[in-house]
């Protein structure tokens, strides 16, 4: 089980990976989205916000989310640190993403662009 602080640290690593990738920022200039990241086994909520291609992270839930990412704390931390890709936990049901199919594909894409090889 990961702690809330570990999830925060993983999201900050994700943000750093994103912000270093200028091409990814260009790709997402048109995609303004609010993402709620919620752990299923501990009280932990974070907000990822994409606006004009820039990604910000903050603790707590947003008033309204376009996408909701739910998983156990360990999977969330592994995912945002890039230790695992979203596909496997998404396919086996460990990771639930609530939102439009297009947005889910795009979130998967961002993660792969940051960590994929």
């Amino acid at each position, binding site marked *: 089980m990961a702690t809330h602080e570990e999830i925060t640290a993983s999201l900050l690593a994700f943000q750093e990976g994103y912000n270093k990738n200028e*091409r990814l920022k*260009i*790709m*997402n*200039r*048109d*995609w303004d989205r609010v993402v709620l990241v919620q752990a299923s086994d501990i009280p932990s909520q974070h907000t990822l916000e994409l606006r004009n291609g820039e990604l910000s992270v903050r603790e707590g839930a947003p008033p309204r989310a376009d996408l909701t990412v739910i998983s156990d704390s360990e999977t969330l931390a592994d995912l945002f640190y890039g230790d695992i*890709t*979203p*596909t*496997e936990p*998404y*396919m086996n049901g460990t990771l639930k993403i609530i939102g439009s*199919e*297009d947005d*889910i*594909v*795009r979130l*998967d*894409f961002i993660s*792969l*662009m940051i960590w*994929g*090889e």
Partner: protein
Amino acid sequence: MKRVVSVSLGSSRRDHRVEVELMGERFEISRRGTDGDFERAVQLLKELDGKVDAIGLGGIDVYLYAGKTRYVIQDGKKLMDAVRKTPVVDGSGLKNTLERETVYYLREHTDLLSPGTRVLMVSAVDRFGMAEAFAGVGCEVTFGDLIFAAGIPYPIHTVSELEELAAKLLPEMTRLPFHMLYPTGKKQETQDEEKIKKFGHYYQEAQVIAGDYHLVRRYMPRLNGQTIITNTTTADDVTFLREKGAGCLVTTTPEFEGRSFGTNVMEAVLVALLQKPVEEITPRDYLDLLRRLDFKPRVLPLR
């Protein structure tokens, strides 16, 4: 008579059956759509296994190529694995030979692909041979893989960037359910109005639009005389393209009874003619056979 069947995840409305003679051999070629129903496709493949001479998988790819790397689409592989006895192909072998040759043929024999021609490939990773050939003959290429598959307004203009992005994305993306990556079943009969509004300008800025017909159709706005290079078109599709304002249709596979078949069907026909295990067939085998059959792209003016 040899029997070749294409089992497709696409709409059953496009089903058809023809009889043709190729190199002195009679063929019955049929296409059976399963309306996006994966389990029905598996069942049908099992029923046909051992009873026909070759099977093509349509409406889905099994193998994608970028450079020398081959990526396997897991859903496509599951369908392929349902067949144990009959040779089964997805068309990727033929795409890498016939479609590359089509570009060279058009460059040499028509004025459709002069150097600097602006070509939009709606998706290029499913037709890497064609993508390389367009770039190789000096066309100004735009690969719309990210734009149309993921909604990301990022045109790719070089084969090397396409390869680089494919290496990052495809190992994982190919594990997603296929319907998340490609329109299957009823989706093939509709257009994506939101993406047309957002990304239709990429079509309008191009002189040539190439690639998978279902993708080309799904995002097509009003055109102004563009050439479409594709296959699997029916008489209704020709009417649709004409109404949209396309100037010319080039189909890479031969036409039988008014429609051009998918590459998976034609590859299955070639496999049935070659009578070699699929894993032993080389691109050279396909090219030699295509020359003996005298297959040439069909160029149909629409205006």
